Every structure is written in C-alpha cells, then in structure tokens.
C-alpha cells in the first residue's frame, strides 16, 4: 500500500466516522419526530428551524450532567463498559462498501476502508463483542436491575445471533462469498438478494431488531420492569455513550441489511444513464443512504407500533420459531442449488 492510498483511506475513514456519528445523532432527532408524528404530536420544534439543533442541545445536556460512579461499583469495568459498546458500534462501519470507486487524479480508489474476504464474519465478531459492553456495564454497576438487564441482553443477543448466523449461511450459499464487496457487486442491476432470499431476509431483519435491542425486543432496558436495565446506574456522557451506541448500531445494521439484501450502492438502470464513473458512484452512494434511511425508518416505525415481548415469548420465538425456520431456509437453499448446479 503506497502513500496516496494510505492518505485516501485515512481521510475516508474520518469521513465515515463523522458521517456515522452525525447520522446517529440525527437518528435521535428522527426517532423523536417519528414517534411524535405517529402519536399525532409535532415533536421537537423549538431548538433551531424544525428543532434541528435539538440533538446538539441533548448532547450538551449529557456533557453537563453530573458524572456519578456508584460507591460499590467496579470503577474500571464501569468505565470500560460504555467504551466497548461505543467502540464496537463504530468499528463495524469499516467493512461496509459505501459506494463504488472514484477516480482522483487518474487513480482509482474504492469507497470501502477494508475489503476483507471475511467481511460478514467481521461484522458478526463486532456485534458479538458489543454484548460485552452491555454485560460488563451491567455487572460493574453492582445493581440488581442493571445485572438483570445485562443478563437479558446477553441471553437475547446470543439466542438471536444463532438464527441470524443461519440466515446468513443461506445467503452465503446463494452468493458464494463472504466478502461484502463481492456480495454487493453480485447484486448489480436488480438482482437484489431479497428476491432470492426473502425468508432469510425476514429472519435477518427480526434478528437485527433483537441484536440492536430495539422494540419490540428492548427487554434489556425495559423501564417498566427494570428501571433502565443495564444503564440504570449510568449518568452523564457514559449514559450518552450507551444510548448513542444503540443508534449507531441501528445505523450500521441498516447499512448491513441494505448491503446484504437490497443491493448496497447498486441502483437500477444506472448503466443506461451513461454517467461518468465519479457521478455514478456519487449517485450510488446517495441511493445507498436512501436505502439505509428507509431501513432506519422501518426500525422506528416498528418501535412505535408494537408493544414489547414478554421474556418467555422472546425466548420461544428465538429458539422454537426462528432457528428452525432458518434451518429450513438453509436446507431449501441447499437443495435448490444442489439440483440446479447438477444440470
């Protein structure tokens, strides 16, 4: 890797980092607006035009709050918890292909920080480590509600990761590759994976809701039973990190869903327009973000529609519903490809 490549990657990394944070920041605003609109209210509209400065005000509030570390808490772990949650949430964006390629000064750069040949596994690894952030935070708080929330989070995430992994195996059977870049380029045109793997997409979507601890799977922090769940004892920006990590996770999982099932940055009929490479990439990225935002909207739409699951219902659905369904999906896909490949 030469110098220009390195500089480009560094700048690109910083851009992704910033965009992720900004999108997550405005997701909080979007969430409040969506919630308000669905409940016939107006939502935040006082800070700045249409309340657009509300996230800044919220962030400032988080920073200004008193920072409390409980006396009986394990101080080191108490600080490490939210850090892990935030770091792992941000790390996943590295493998996602945000766009095609751009030419700058005659050189071609790919709009993906790291094209790992095991991209999907990397995403899974990061998601799994994310559990540690919640678990450590809940444990270190030395509070029964926090611990209960953390245990719920861990068991929920582990249960749904299984079904999620299985739905991905079926996808890998179709694409024949673990590299996200490869998967996206295979979906060129309208060959989106959702048309080939509708059941897999459905399972993946449900599991993504569970993995990001979003309603109707927000049991780890259900305020009616557990006060605040794993972040009961957290205050100030450490609480902000947990809340923020949730929104980053939502953004990243929307991006992953868009990449795996909705063709990533591919836009139908882009070839017929006869655009230059840079313009096409730009439009592709724009289209990718459109897909991501639609997914985020779906996340919010579901959250403000459905009530929370009961814990036994959650476990029943994960183990007795989704995992057998995912296994069936793998089997069906395998049989289909076995017979079509034979011909």
């Amino acid at each position, binding site marked *: 890797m030469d110098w220009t490549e390195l500089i480009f990657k560094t700048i690109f990394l910083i851009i992704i980092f910033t965009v992720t944070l900004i999108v997550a920041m405005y997701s909080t605003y979007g969430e409040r607006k969506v919630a308000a*609109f*669905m409940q016939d209210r107006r939502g935040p*509209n006082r800070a700045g035009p249409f309340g657009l400065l509300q996230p800044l005000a919220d962030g400032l509030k988080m920073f200004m709050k008193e920072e409390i570390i409980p006396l009986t808490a394990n101080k080191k772990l108490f600080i490490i918890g939210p850090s892990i949650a935030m770091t792992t949430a941000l790390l996943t964006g590295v493998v996602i292909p945000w766009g095609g390629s751009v030419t700058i000064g005659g050189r071609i750069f790919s709009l993906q920080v790291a094209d790992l040949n095991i991209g999907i596994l990397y995403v899974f690894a990061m998601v799994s480590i994310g559990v540690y952030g919640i678990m450590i935070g809940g444990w270190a708080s030395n509070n029964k509600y926090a611990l209960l929330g953390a245990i719920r989070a861990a068991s929920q995430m582990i249960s749904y990761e299984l079904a999620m992994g299985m739905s991905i195996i079926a996808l890998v059977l179709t694409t024949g590759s673990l590299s996200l870049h490869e998967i996206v380029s295979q979906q060129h045109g309208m060959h989106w994976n959702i048309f080939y793997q509708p059941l897999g997409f459905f399972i993946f979507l449900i599991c993504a809701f569970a993995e990001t601890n979003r309603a109707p799977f927000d049991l780890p922090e259900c305020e009616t039973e557990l006060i605040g769940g794993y972040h009961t004892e957290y205050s100030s920006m450490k609480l902000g990190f947990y809340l923020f990590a949730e929104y980053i996770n939502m953004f990243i999982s929307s991006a992953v869903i868009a990449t795996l099932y909705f063709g990533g940055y591919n836009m139908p009929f882009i070839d017929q327009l006869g655009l230059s490479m840079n313009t096409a990439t730009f439009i592709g990225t724009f289209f990718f973000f459109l897909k991501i935002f639609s997914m985020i909207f779906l996340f919010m739409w579901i959250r403000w529609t459905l009530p929370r699951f009961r814990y036994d219902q959650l476990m029943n659905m994960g183990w007795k519903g989704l995992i057998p369904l995912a296994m069936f999906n793998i089997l069906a896909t395998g049989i289909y490809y076995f017979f079509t490949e034979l011909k």
Partner: protein
Amino acid sequence: MQNLTNRSKMVSDKKMTFLEWIYIPAIIKGMSITIRHFFGKKTTINYPEEKREFSKVYRGQHVLKRDDEGRERCTACGLCAVACPAEAITMRAAERKPGEEHLYREEKYAAVYEINMLRCIYCGDCEDACPKEAIFLTDRIVASQYERKPFVYGKDILVEPLDLNLRIDISARQTEAVHQFKSVKRYAHNK
C-alpha cells in the same frame, strides 16, 4: 346488564389460529394504523404562536375597570374579598382627598388591592359580587413566573390603562343575563 359502551368486546382465551400465531397480519395492521397517523393532522397547538380560541366567557386574569372619564370604579367595599372562596383578595381602603376627583369615582377607594394569583381559583365570584362593575375576569392568561412573589398582583397590574385605546374589552362578559342579574335588587350585594 346494559353495556356501558357499544364498543365492548367479549374476551376469550381460545387457542390462536395459525394466522394469529405468526403475528404478521396483526403487525401489518398495526403498522398501517401508525403510518396513517404519521401523515394525519397533528393535534398539538404551537402555544405562544398559535392560541386556542377561548370561550367568550373564559375566566382568566382579572382587570380593575376605569369608567369613561378614566376614574377607578373600585370603591374598596370588600365584597369581592368576602365572596372569594380562596381568600385570594386583600385590599386596604383610603379616603379620597379633595383634588383627587379625577382619579377615583367614589369618595372611598382602594389604596392597596392585591390578588394572589396562586390562590385564585378563577371562579368569578368576585365579579358577581362587585356592585360597582369594577372587577372582571378576562381572557388573558396569567404569565408563569420563576418565583412565588410576583404572583401577587397589585394595582399596577390589575388596573387597566388610562388610554381609551388600551382599555381591556370585557363586553363579551356583560351579557344580557349578567345585566339582568346585576339589576335585581333582591340579591344581597345589589342592595
């Protein structure tokens, strides 16, 4: 037994059918309801910019009226304070000195007239009790404050301005029924 509403439904714990068990139709139904509300009309009123229309006889902040020549109507008889169920009104009477005829309508006037807006329940009994048509409740809203003290409104806030254009309009409250009521001498306060 008679139903309380016509929307009541019998509850049963029958076994769910397959369609009910997979929840999907119910989820889609719920989501269609929320999306309809998403684009629906919002019920919130942006308060300081928009104001809800009040009833004509809304009972808000009080006003102490002046007569056409700009003299205070209040004669500090204390009937409003007696009538007040919340004991929000206090006053101290004073005698009108020669040369003050342009200020006060009667020979006695209220040197101090205070209403504690935190105690007031806005029932309008003071208005009914007043024989001089001096005190009225208006459609103005009592402003919020950070402390308790400013809620005790004195004459500086309560008495309406001298300027004829700035007078507080209370015509909506002086309905025919009110005039009728005020003219009947049978009621104690009108004697």
